[in-house]
């Protein structure tokens, strides 16, 4: 039953949405210096980090059970590499935000925002490839 159901395709939207929303809150917190916004960013990034794990696991399961663990190439390989990079960046962004929260009100290290921006870009590219692979648009 699980074999023909796209668990990875469904689950991946949770870390994507949570992370992007968290980054937006982080940027707003940086601009307005409001603690509440920073807390919102923290919990969103925490949720993204947590939900990234089942998304990764189901992706690996799809590779192992639907594709028999074959050596990947082309779009599939790119999706794997970018997806792995995205997961690492999500966890890095969350970890940096944890440290940054403790330093308020001295200020937040600005390089975090650059890292988060890069993570959003890489996640966007990963999702774009995922959309191609899943055939979400179907036959044209």
């Amino acid at each position, binding site marked *: 039953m699980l074999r023909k159901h796209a668990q990875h395709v469904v689950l991946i939207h949770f870390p994507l949405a949570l992370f992007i929303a968290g980054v937006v809150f982080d940027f707003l917190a940086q601009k307005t210096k409001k603690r509440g916004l920073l807390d919102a960013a923290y919990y969103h990034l925490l949720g993204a980090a947590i939900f990234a794990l089942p998304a990764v696991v189901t992706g690996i399961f799809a590779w192992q059970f639907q*594709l028999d663990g*074959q050596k990947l*190439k*082309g779009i*599939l390989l790119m999706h794997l590499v970018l997806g792995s990079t995205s997961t690492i960046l999500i966890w890095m962004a969350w970890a940096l935000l944890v440290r940054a929260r403790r330093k308020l009100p001295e200020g937040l290290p600005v390089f975090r925002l650059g890292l988060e921006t890069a993570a959003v870009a890489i996640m966007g590219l990963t999702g774009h490839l995922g959309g*191609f692979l899943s*055939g979400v648009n179907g036959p044209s």
Partner: protein
Amino acid sequence: MRRSVFLASLLVMAVMVLGGMVAEHGSFVASAQEKAASTAEVKIDNFAFGPTVITVPVGSTVTWINRDDIPHTVASTEKVFKSKVLDTDEKFSYTFTKAGEYPYFCSIHPKMTGKVVVQ
């Protein structure tokens, strides 16, 4: 006497010629059947197998060619055959030695389905 021998010889020659013609026709038919049974092609494009249902004689080899921009696979529902991941322009072939119906799908996009009918 000579006339009957002559007629008998003609008859034998006629039988030999006719027999040769039949044999040649039979081998021609057999080779034509062999050619008909040899290959068939299914194109994978636009997230679909074309033709969706293909009917071939026993002993035929069906070749799937991925003409799509996206990787696909060809996997038998009854696990009779399964391809590796096929990138654009890559092929997978399978020879069907038994009559029957062989439904298959793409394991990456399970809603892509097709069937090979072997008669």
